Structures are given as C-alpha cells and as structure tokens.
C-alpha cells in the first residue's frame, strides 16, 4: 500500500515538474501534497453509481425469477396432461370432444381454439376500420380540442372494467341478437360485438401514435405536388404508417384473445364446435374462468385446464413475435 502511495505521489510530482504550459489544476495540487485518500477511494458519485446499478439489477433479477417461475409452473402443469395423463397432443389440438372428467380420450380443445381465434379475428376485423377512421379524424381533421376530447373518450372506454362490458353485452346485445337472428343470442357474434368495443380504444390510440409519427414533411411534400388532403392521407400517410398500424391491430388481437370475463358472459359456455356465428360456444379463456373452481388440483380435468392456459401463454408469445416481426419490416 505504502509503495503504491509513494508511486502515485511520484507520478504527480513528475507531472508538475514536466509541465510546459502551466496547468491550473496540477499547480493547485502542489508538489507532494497529493490527497492519496481521495484519489484511491471510490468517490461519492461512484458509490451512487454502484447503488443505482445494484438496485436495477436486483429488480430485474426478481422480475426474471417471476417470469421464469410463471412459465415453468404453467408449463409443468400444462404439459403433465400430455406426459402424466398421456393425452395425445394432436387429439388435444384437433378433437372437439371436451369432457376431461371422462378420461384421456375426451380432452379435445379444437372447439375452443376455433372459437377463440374466430372472436379474435372477427373483432379485430370489425374494429380496425373504425379505429383507423377515428384515428384519422383525430390526427387529420379535427382541432386539438376535438382530438383531446376523443382521446379522453377512448381512455374512458379503456377504463371501464370488463365485467361491465360483459353485463352490457348480456343485457343489450344478447337479446337483440336473439330477436334478430333467433337462437339463444349467445355465441361468437355477441362476443365479437362486445370485444369490438373493448379493443377499439387499444387499436385507436396506437393508430393515432402511428399516424402522428409520420413526418410532417411528407404531408407538405405531397401537398406541394398537388395532392388533396385525402390523397395525401391515402397514398402517403397510411402507407408510411402501415407497419405501425398492423402492430396496433396485433395488440388489439392480443387483448381480444386474452379477454375472459366479458366473453364468458355472452359466449354461451358450451364447449361445442361453433357451426355459425350465433351458436353457443366457449373460448379458451371463458372455459378457464368458468371451470377452474370445479376441478381438483393434480387431476386430469385440472391439468387439462392448465393446458389451455399454456396454449394462451404460447399464443401471447406468438402475438409478441408478430409485433416484432412487423416492426422490423417497418424499419426497412
């Protein structure tokens, strides 16, 4: 230690002796009066740096443990249907026979898979044109005041709990569909209409961001070439924003796919292959919510539900992957 201190002193003194242009800071130090303590110990700022870094790493570590254990738990239970109870994976994916309490040959989730995808795609399909229209109105046509007002309306729609949407759907949409098309009124159509209102704000606000991100210069350049406002929107703004609008739609689909409560209230909860839009059916999520209280941990019916959860988890990964893929394409 002492040798090190001497070395350091020597270095500073040498630097002072050798300087050609007088150096204010070095001269202030003066020969042999080097504060070795300060130069060899970490400063307050350095310690703050360690602290901050440490805190961030701790938080990240916790989150990673959490995520890994969730995936591990869902995976272990979901896969035990196939490994412990020997259910055939293809049977699970393609059979419509769902009655897990009757044994391993009655674990077919195809009806729920089809219904889940149907309500997701249909609600996204219905919501996207409206979302784009609203977003265009907010960014291109209305004043700032109007846009702010619409923005708060959309935020309000996001804020309404899903059980309220389900209740509204059950009270209004289901009877209306029953009267218009016959049947019970429960089914994919009702679920689609409820989900339409629920994913609209998600897609809209992300589409607004997408449209706002289109540089103003493009609009000016297009106008200067003799384009009308609508031509500019149609040929430049929407085209430039397309990747981000697609991302918005995928986020909306992820929300629709994962929505459980509201869908459960209007879908009918009969695990049957839907043969039309107004026949009662069940989605992966609605089956999970309605059945999880009725099974015993570790039994086949319980494990089968975990398999549905695993499927949902995998789908959310797929949606994430799609978002990245589309985003990457947009950067090119």
């Amino acid at each position, binding site marked *: 230690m002492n040798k090190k201190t001497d070395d350091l002193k020597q270095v500073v003194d040498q630097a002072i002796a050798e300087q050609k242009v007088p150096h204010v800071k070095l001269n202030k130090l003066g020969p042999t009066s080097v504060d070795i303590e300060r130069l060899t110990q970490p400063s307050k700022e350095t310690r703050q740096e360690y602290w901050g870094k440490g805190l961030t790493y701790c938080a990240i570590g916790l989150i990673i443990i959490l995520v890994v254990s969730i995936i591990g738990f869902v995976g272990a239970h979901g896969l035990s249907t196939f490994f412990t109870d020997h259910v055939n994976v293809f049977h699970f994916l393609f059979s419509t026979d769902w009655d897990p309490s009757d044994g391993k040959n009655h674990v077919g989730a195809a009806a729920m898979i089809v219904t889940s995808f149907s309500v997701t795609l249909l609600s996204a399909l219905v919501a996207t044109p409206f979302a784009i229209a609203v977003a265009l109105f907010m960014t291109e046509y209305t004043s700032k005041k109007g846009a702010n007002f619409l923005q708060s309306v959309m935020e309000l729609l996001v804020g309404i709990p899903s059980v309220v949407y389900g209740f509204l759907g059950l009270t209004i949409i289901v009877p209306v569909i029953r009267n218009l098309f016959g049947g019970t009124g429960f089914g994919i159509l009702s679920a689609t209409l409820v989900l339409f209102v629920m994913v609209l704000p998600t897609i809209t606000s992300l589409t607004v961001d997408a449209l706002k991100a289109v540089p103003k210069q493009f609009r000016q350049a297009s106008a*200067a070439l*003799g384009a009308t406002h609508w031509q500019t929107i149609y040929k430049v703004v929407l085209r430039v924003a397309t990747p981000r609008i697609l991302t918005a739609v995928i986020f909306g689909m992820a929300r629709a796919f994962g929505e459980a409560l509201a869908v459960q209230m209007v879908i009918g909860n009969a695990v049957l292959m839907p043969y039309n839009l107004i026949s009662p059916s069940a989605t992966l999520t609605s089956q999970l919510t309605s059945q999880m209280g009725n099974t015993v941990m570790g039994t086949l019916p319980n494990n089968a539900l975990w398999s549905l959860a695993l499927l949902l988890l995998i789908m959310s990964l797929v949606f994430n992957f799609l978002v990245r893929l589309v985003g990457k394409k947009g950067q090119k």
Partner: protein
Amino acid sequence: MRKEVISAKDVKLSYGNFEALHGINLNFREKELTALIGPSGCGKSTFLRCLNRMNDDIENTTITGEILFDGQDIYSPKMDLVELRKDVGMVFQQPTPFPFSVYNNIAYGLRLAGVKDKDLIDQRVEESLKQAAIWNDVKDNLDRNAQAFSGGQQQRICIARALAVRPKVVLLDEPTSALDPISSSEIEETLLELKQSYTFIMVTHNLQQASRISDRTAFFMNGDLIEAGPTEQMFIAPDKQITSDYLNGRFG
C-alpha cells in the same frame, strides 16, 4: 424583357396578431432564377410559401393583397389549389423523398394528376431524373427505397419529383442548406442548367450561392422587401446602405 410569371402586389401576411409580411411588391420573370435573401426571420420563407399557398394549412394565418400567377389571382376562390401546386412546385430544405421506391417517388405527382399511361410515366421518370442529374446514380436501382440514398442524392430525387409534373415555377426553400458543400455545388450546377427551361425562386442563406446562380436577387428584412434587382447590380452597387451592410456581413 422576359415575361412576368408571378407578380405579388402589396402582400401582407399575419399569424394571429403578428404581421410577418408588411406589403410585398415583387415580380418574378420567366426562366430566371430569383434568390430571396435576408437575415433569419425576415419573412423570405413565409413569402415563398405564399406563392403556392403552402401557408393555407397553418392556422390563424391571414393574407391580404394579390398574387398573380399567369394573370390569375391565386388567392381568389376560383383558383384550383391542386392545379396551382402542379404549376408551382416546391423543394424543401430537408430532402423529403417518400419511403417508396425511386420510381414511385417520381411518378407520385403524375399519378395524382391522373396519368395512367405506363409508357408516359416511364418516359417522364427517366427525363426528370436526367434533368435533376441523378439518372446515372439511380437507373439501375429504380426499385430501391429512395431513403436509402445519400442526402444530396435524395434532394436531387426531390427535385426530379417536382419536375416530373412539368411545373412552370419551382420554389426552392433553402434546398442545399442541409447538404454538404460538394452536394450543394452539384445541385447548384443542376439548377444553372435547368433555369433555361424553368422559373426558379430560391430562398437561401448562402449569399455566395445567390451571387453564383441567381439572375435577380430580392433582399428582405423584418417583413419588408428592402430592395430587388439584377443580382450583379445588387451585389456590386446596391441602392440602399442596409443592403450593402448585409451583403458585406456587417449583420445577419
């Protein structure tokens, strides 16, 4: 004497309560390059944007006075804005090619004008790119995204895009200020060539550039047109003391 294409009479413009232009009278002649110079915030860009009504989109703007283009008042309600902008094109400070292919960028204006004939579009694209002296750089890459090219090349693509619709007048808003000196001088050369066939009105901060390539120069300050005339006369013997001070770099 050449024919006057655009003449502005007593043009006043205000943003809200702030009057940015206090009555500008200025005429532009056919097939000449007129440079608008002056210190920052003097209103030269604002005035340029009046000439194809680009200020229309800015809220709270009021414009009075008269701007005649080919004898027609462009601010009269009868004026077709789309037609006007086809005749009076514009190139901006930042190169703004759309993120489409080069070909689609150049064809954009033509397609807006309703041109469907593929051969005609092909021919115009080639012609315009040649006029903007960028044909050799892009002829093998017409399908490449226009934003993949360098800044100078992008600005030429923008010039070609403006020329493709065969405008009578092209407004240039500091077209080289975002470019490096070599690209700038190449664009200047291109403009010197092109002014045989087009009328250019260029805002520039670069006095040397104005003296090199413009036929006439107009000097703006604080929203007033101080002086306008043939470039040589302006630079050698300006009428007003303040013009001489500005050109000699005493302020601005």
